[in-house]
């Protein structure tokens, strides 16, 4: 039985008491099997942060290997046992580390952790609904996600270690259990975990779309929705259309691995033995994978874009520049993202003409992306900027998106890609444009909506600034030099660069990158301390600490089922009326009707409201007459 329903039931029985006295939740229904979207958001966030910390530690392990390939660290053997014999990482375990780092970051942190947290928290609160379309499915979504996380991590505890074929799990490597350690049981667990994950993602996404389309409060038409909600909505649509394709690809891979079919396999000789597979095509897997995989990178970045838009507008005290253009560019990105997947496959022997087609569609995506970037910059331009930690992270997101996006234009070029494919140039590109940018968007969201997540507490600002500056500088120090390594032809995923004399000159750069990564890692300790201690000891915030316009700040500080006591507020205006000329405060919440803000109304506020326009004109006339008398 849904706990939301239970509240309404009680409300009917004794309606003299306030709404908030009616919770009869046990610990289990409140904190564990909760169907409340705000609690589910917190569950996603904390699980996501845990996974992020694990993925970060994995990356530090392989960074140590890259910086000191010939040194042995006895501590590693103590910690990792057979995965680091003699204090040096096992080469196959190195591949597993890279694989699991990528998988966790892309799927578990930046898909589930980001969308799961903020779509869950903000869609009902900013659209004005009591909860999700189906709270029960929403709860299932979290539990599938947790199951997927546990299975993924469990693969560290099997004899041969976790999956090692890279986060893209290309066959034949991933399809032949005997090919290497990382193709064995670890790979099977990876596939099972991903099936759970896809289930979770679909259940979440379906709920988000249905909620946005069906459960908005009175007055909240689509063009009055905050950009965050637009971004989450389009992200969910992307997920619904692309994740099932990965299911299809993974199902065929499972058949090849475990049943002996030949969808992806052909002409394989394994350890001197000719395998019975014939007629399969590994390229087929790449098509299926990247048909998901490319939309997936937009699933990662679009929520961050939405969060950055909102945070930047609030903290610049200015309307977002080009609201409609922002929405149309999100829609443009959503649509285009389905016809560019071939740019991951330029060097698979693709017909050069087809390569040209994919190149053109890829480069066209630069247009909506640039529209968004210029709009963010124009929003900040001459704004009355408040440099809160959230604002800094949002600006950081824009910075990474620009510097990573520029190299996308190089990589999208099918001729240049022959040279750059699978080098550190690619690693640098996507770590900036979707890795760092999305993480910064997520952190901006955490700092900004912390009072909504944890009943009116604020995170510490000073620690926030410390966290931002160290992370920001170190992220650039880590990823910027990688461009030059890539241009020089250093390939990604190699275990030790000293094995290749021509790469020796990059050793000092690798050491710099590793130490920057370690420093960035330490900065996250400040965040973790700040995040967890603020839950109990954070400064108390007012109901609307950032003077923002959106609906979530009209909800009471203390969480309650159904979000608002009594009726859900009605919406009268768009969410970006900041510093509107003629109004005494520099923000006008969406719930304030135009009739209460006569001095700041403008003719275009009444575009489809002739009665209102008439009243407005009458008011202006009367007002002018008064001025004349004075």
């Amino acid at each position, binding site marked *: 039985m849904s706990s939301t329903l239970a509240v*309404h039931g009680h409300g009917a029985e004794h309606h003299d008491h306030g709404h908030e006295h009616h919770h009869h939740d046990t610990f289990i229904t409140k904190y564990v099997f909760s169907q409340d979207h705000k609690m589910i958001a917190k569950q996603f966030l904390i699980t996501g942060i845990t996974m992020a910390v694990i993925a970060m530690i994995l990356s530090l392990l392989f960074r140590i290997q890259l910086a000191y390939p010939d040194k042995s660290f006895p501590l590693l053997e103590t910690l990792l046992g057979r995965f680091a014999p003699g204090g040096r990482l096992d080469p196959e375990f190195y591949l597993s580390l890279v694989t699991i780092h990528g998988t966790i970051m892309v799927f578990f942190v930046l898909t589930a952790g980001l969308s799961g947290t903020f779509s869950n928290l903000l869609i009902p609160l900013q659209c004005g609904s009591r909860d999700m*379309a*189906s709270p029960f499915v929403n709860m299932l979504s979290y539990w599938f996600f947790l199951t997927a996380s546990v299975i993924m991590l469990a693969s560290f505890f099997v004899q041969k270690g976790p999956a090692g074929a890279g986060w893209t799990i290309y066959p034949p490597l991933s399809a032949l259990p005997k090919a290497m350690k990382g193709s064995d049981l670890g790979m099977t667990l990876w596939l099972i975990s991903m099936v759970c994950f896809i289930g979770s993602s679909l259940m979440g996404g379906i709920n988000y779309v249905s909620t946005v389309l069906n459960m908005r409060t009175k007055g909240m038409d689509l063009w009055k929705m905050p950009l965050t909600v637009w971004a989450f909505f389009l992200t969910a649509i992307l997920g619904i259309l692309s994740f099932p394709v990965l299911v299809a690809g993974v199902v065929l891979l499972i058949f090849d691995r475990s*049943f002996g079919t030949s*969808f992806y396999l052909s002409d394989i000789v394994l350890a001197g033995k000719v395998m019975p*597979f014939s007629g399969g095509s590994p390229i087929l897997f790449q098509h299926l994978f990247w048909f998901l995989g490319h939309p997936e990178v937009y699933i990662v970045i679009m929520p961050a874009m939405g969060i950055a838009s909102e945070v930047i507008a609030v903290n610049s005290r200015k309307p977002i520049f080009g609201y409609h253009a922002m929405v149309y560019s999100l829609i443009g990105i959503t649509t285009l993202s389905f016809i560019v997947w071939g740019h991951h496959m330029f060097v698979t022997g693709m017909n050069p003409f087809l390569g040209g087609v994919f190149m053109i569609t890829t480069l066209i995506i630069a247009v909506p992306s640039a529209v968004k970037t210029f709009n963010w910059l124009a929003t900040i331009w001459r704004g009355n900027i408040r440099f809160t930690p959230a604002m800094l992270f949002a600006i950081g997101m824009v910075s990474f998106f620009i510097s990573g996006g520029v190299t996308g234009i190089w990589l999208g070029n099918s001729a240049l890609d022959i040279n750059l494919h699978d080098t550190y140039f690619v690693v640098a590109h996507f770590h900036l444009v979707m890795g760092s940018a999305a993480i910064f968007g997520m952190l901006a969201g955490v700092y900004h909506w912390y009072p909504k997540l944890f009943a009116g507490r604020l995170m510490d600002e000073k620690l926030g600034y410390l966290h931002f500056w160290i992370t920001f500088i170190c992220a650039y120090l880590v990823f910027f030099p990688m461009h030059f390594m890539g241009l020089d032809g250093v390939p990604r995923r190699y275990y030790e660069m000293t094995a290749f004399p021509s790469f020796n000159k990059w050793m000092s750069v690798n050491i710099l990158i590793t130490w920057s990564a370690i420093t960035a890692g330490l900065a996250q300790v400040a965040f973790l301390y700040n995040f967890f201690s603020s839950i109990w000891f954070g400064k108390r915030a007012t109901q609307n600490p950032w003077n923002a316009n959106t609906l979530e700040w009209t909800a009471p500080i203390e969480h309650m089922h159904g979000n608002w006591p009594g009726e859900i507020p009605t919406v009268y205006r768009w969410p970006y009326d900041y510093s509107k000329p003629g109004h005494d405060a520099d923000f006008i919440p969406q719930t304030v009707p135009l009739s209460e803000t006569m001095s700041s109304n403008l003719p275009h506020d009444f575009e489809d409201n002739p009665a209102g326009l008439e009243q407005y004109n009458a008011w202006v006339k009367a007002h002018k007459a008064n001025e004349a008398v004075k």
Partner: protein
Amino acid sequence: MMAQQVHQEKDRLDLAPKKFVMWLFVFASFMIFAALTSGFIVYAGGHGHALNLRLPDIFIYSTSVIVLSSLTMFMASRSAKRLEFDRQRLFLWLTVALGILFFVLQVYGWYILTYKMGIYFVNPNASQSFIYVFTGVHLLHIVAGIMVLLSALYISYRNRPQAINLYRMEIASIFWHFLDIMWIYLYVFLLLNQN
């Protein structure tokens, strides 16, 4: 306070978003089949491996069975709307029975493919393996579909409010008709690619 209660009642009984969830689920599931058939096209096109077989006639029978089940599903929905609950249950039971019959016929189709025609799932020509994948993934959906039908039946026996009954029936119809159309798509797709 009264108005507020009424308002909340409306919140609670608003089943439209939940119905929309079903539609979205249908889209997601359609994408799986779209991906599998696209995979077939890429595979068959790139390697010159066509199916090279004549599909067993049993699939014609299973197709008629599932089309018929769509019809009984429609009759069940209509009876529910006309408050003829006995007829509703009867037609629902018929739909479940036809669903199970479809399942059996499909599995029998596999039997004919393997034992009579020598077309195995593990096959160097993966186009032929795709037949098993299409039918298998579809049968998984059929199992889910039968469960949805049974849950609609359960509700109709429990004398729940008519709004709930109709909602469950609509959920079941959307899904079941989708499964019917999906199978026709897959069957026609396979027929067109026989050579």
